[in-house]
């Protein structure tokens, strides 16, 4: 889980309070956020709403890679919705089906927005997103057909009465200009075309507030069927994607490698990479290398804040230019520290997590967006923001890493103290003897054994 916030004053105390309050609201262990996993990025994470000045010292970003999302986080998230999970789209969100998926992510975004066009008053916009990836191919007996009932084991019955808009969008974009490859039932209320992430896409829209939808049946079960059996066609690769992994052997050193792919055929663009590495992996910034197409690539902006033991993590921010159609490899070597025995997690051989790195970029679109599109599809512009039509903003998170640290023997504290103190006592004893005693000739013992005793 990660948390970031731009404050207006007195940051550190407010950060602690914020993380504790959010931890209580969402039943997430955000209260473990402290100075050892919080950083102050200088360039990433520019706020998206109205903001008076962006002093980066007031921004805090923390990541807790060990925390996973589960039912206890979903329930308070659903409670924030106006109708909860009783009406509207949220009735589909039942925990046992949602967590039976390949990927699950939920987010809450808050930003100040203008209340109206004249921007005299500012309100707070709360945006909640839930991203779930269902693999129907694997669970649907080899067919790529899906339906709401198959995925969520429920259907939609009505819209939330408090909602001003309640829509379901189904992406029916034809690939390779072939039409009629798939069929959506029931027929959608409208079909909408939009340019999303530089691509022209067609959406079938189901407006739950429109009275036509529930005319024929009380429940809405959107189904999608493929007309022809699908040849294995690959999904289009996104223009910007990244991978991260740890290499090396043994428990002393290692290397973190990040691979960034730019699959745009002819446009180069810069990407801002933010890496937060915990203090117990000691990064050596003189081993940082960035290689693109076999040649060294120097970043145009680099900000590095080394870690302090037990106080703050490493922060590395770089602005790297990615040439068109290339793979960029960024490597940095680190040394693993030995921690005190109380600082290990209860299962120390599981390893320690390193949080994802964040890539922020303005990716150039293959198809430019026109201003008129921006007004017509407010949903898409808030999900995929772009300041002008020619590029769109993307924030990517790489995989978290798991590294092993050398462990001391946890059963040994008393023994170690005794043995080390014995060695010191041996030194002290021999020196004491030699310093305080002098040589004497041995006196012969008089009398027999009995007298000696």
């Amino acid at each position, binding site marked *: 889980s990660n948390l970031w916030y731009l404050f207006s004053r007195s940051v550190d105390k407010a950060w602690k309070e914020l993380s504790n309050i959010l931890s209580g609201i969402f039943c997430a262990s955000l209260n473990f956020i402290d100075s050892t996993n919080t950083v102050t990025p200088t360039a990433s994470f520019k706020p998206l709403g109205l903001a008076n000045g962006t002093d980066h010292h007031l921004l805090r970003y923390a990541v807790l890679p060990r925390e996973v999302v589960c039912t206890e986080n979903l329930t308070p998230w659903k409670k924030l919705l106006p109708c909860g999970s009783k009406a509207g789209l949220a009735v589909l969100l039942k925990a046992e089906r949602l967590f039976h998926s390949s990927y699950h992510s939920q987010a809450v975004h808050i930003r100040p927005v203008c209340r109206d066009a004249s921007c005299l008053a500012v309100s707070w916009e709360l945006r909640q997103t839930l991203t779930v990836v269902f693999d129907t191919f694997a669970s649907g007996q080899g067919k790529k057909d899906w339906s709401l009932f198959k995925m969520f084991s429920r259907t939609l019955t009505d819209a939330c009465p408090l909602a001003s808009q309640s829509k379901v969008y189904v992406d029916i974009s034809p690939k390779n200009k072939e039409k009629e490859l798939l069929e959506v039932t029931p027929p959608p209320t409208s079909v909408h075309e939009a340019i999303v992430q530089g691509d022209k896409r067609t959406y079938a829209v189901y407006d739950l507030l429109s009275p036509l939808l529930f005319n024929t049946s009380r429940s809405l079960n959107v189904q999608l069927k493929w007309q022809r059996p699908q040849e294995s066609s690959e999904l289009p690769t996104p223009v910007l994607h990244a991978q991260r992994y740890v290499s090396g052997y043994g428990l002393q050193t290692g290397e973190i490698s990040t691979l960034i792919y730019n699959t745009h055929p002819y446009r180069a663009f810069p990407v801002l990479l933010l890496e937060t590495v915990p203090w117990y992996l000691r990064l*050596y910034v*003189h081993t940082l290398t960035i290689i693109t197409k076999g040649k060294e690539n120097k970043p145009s902006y680099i900000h590095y804040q*080394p870690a302090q033991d037990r106080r703050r993590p490493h922060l590395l921010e770089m602005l790297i230019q990615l040439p068109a159609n290339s793979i960029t490899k960024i490597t940095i070597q680190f040394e693993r520290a030995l921690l*005190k025995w109380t600082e290990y997690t209860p299962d120390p051989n599981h390893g320690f997590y390193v949080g994802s790195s964040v890539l922020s970029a303005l990716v150039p679109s293959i198809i430019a967006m026109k201003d008129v599109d921006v007004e017509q599809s407010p949903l898409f512009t808030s999900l995929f923001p772009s300041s002008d039509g020619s590029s769109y903003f993307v924030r990517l998170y790489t995989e978290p890493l798991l590294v092993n640290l050398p462990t001391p023997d946890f059963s040994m*504290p008393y023994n170690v103290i005794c043995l080390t103190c014995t*060695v010191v006592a041996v*030194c002290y004893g021999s020196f004491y003897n030699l310093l305080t005693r002098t*040589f004497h*000739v041995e006196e012969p013992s008089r009398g027999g054994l009995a007298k000696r005793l």
Partner: protein
Amino acid sequence: VVEGLALLDLGVSPYSGAVFHETPLIIYLFHFLIEYAELVFMITDVLTAVALYLAIQDFNKVVFKKQKLLIELDKYAPDVAELIRTPMEMHYIPLKVALFYLLNPYTVMSCVAKSTCAINNTVVAFFILATIKGSAFLSAIFLALATYQTLYPLTLFAPALLYLLQRQFIPIKLKSKSFWLYTMQYAALYLCSLVVIICLSFFLLNSWDFIPSVYGFILSVPDLTPNIGLFWYFFAEMFEHFSLFFVCVFQINVFFYTIPLAIKLKEHPMFFMFVQIAIISIFKSYPTVGDIALYMAFLPVWSHLYRFLRNIFILSCVLIVCSFLFPVLWHLWIYAGSANSNFYYAITLTFNIGQILLISDYFYAFLRREYYLTHGLHLTRQDGTEAMLVLK
């Protein structure tokens, strides 16, 4: 050091992280010399050897003079002729010292690893040379440099002071005015040079950051990377509650032997220096094999004590075997994963016990020889039978 230079290039203070703990003067030095690093370390080792050679040469002359004086004053017992040292046997000692240092596998290892310990050794060697030559000013400067880099050579102030007092023929009596005058002079020289060097470092990097990073680091032992010393595992397994207490105890342990040794060995300041250097290299918070190489270089100076050493065979075997086992068990723990940290820790313990017993053995032999010199070699009891010597 390379990391510190890279951080400087990026515009970040090298001390803002936890990786760099060397002094600003080292950064400054290596800023120019980083290209020739191997050559630099070879030259420092050669310089150390040369300094030790010249120092021991002078020291031998002093020893011989003192011996002659004591014989003339009839301080020695009549039958100790075989214990008296002759110039013939002392002729090759300086060469042996230099060779002991240069050919010691520990020195070679620390040169290959390009450890800054070699620079510290050079400064200490020059300090010893300056002390033996009798120049209080140079000796104070080199001692200040050595203390500035690693804190522990502070304890070498006492043997140097004793040596210089002996050289000036000032008797060591607490009531003597000239004693206190000379002590104050030397202490003032030392402290002033230390202050000058620290201020110079401040102006190099324009911050006082280096003080907690260098000295705070040495004193509080936050980094528990395994080394050949005793501290790392101790503090890795320490109960949190007692951590501060034991840090203080261990630091006091290094400085603690100075005063008693000074009282006992005030007539023999060079042996005091040797024992003190050995104690520093065993009990310092981050020892390296380079420190061991330095005090082992002095062993040929005391080769005449060989007949009084009690356990030299066992101890040398212990040290050699442990030196071979160190990398083996390290590899097994960190890379092969088939041993755990206890194996490496055990070798640390044995190695340090070996070193401690070596030093106390030499100390015992030294004191015993002194006793024989003044009381005669063949001791007889009151009834004429051969006697045994015990420590009581």
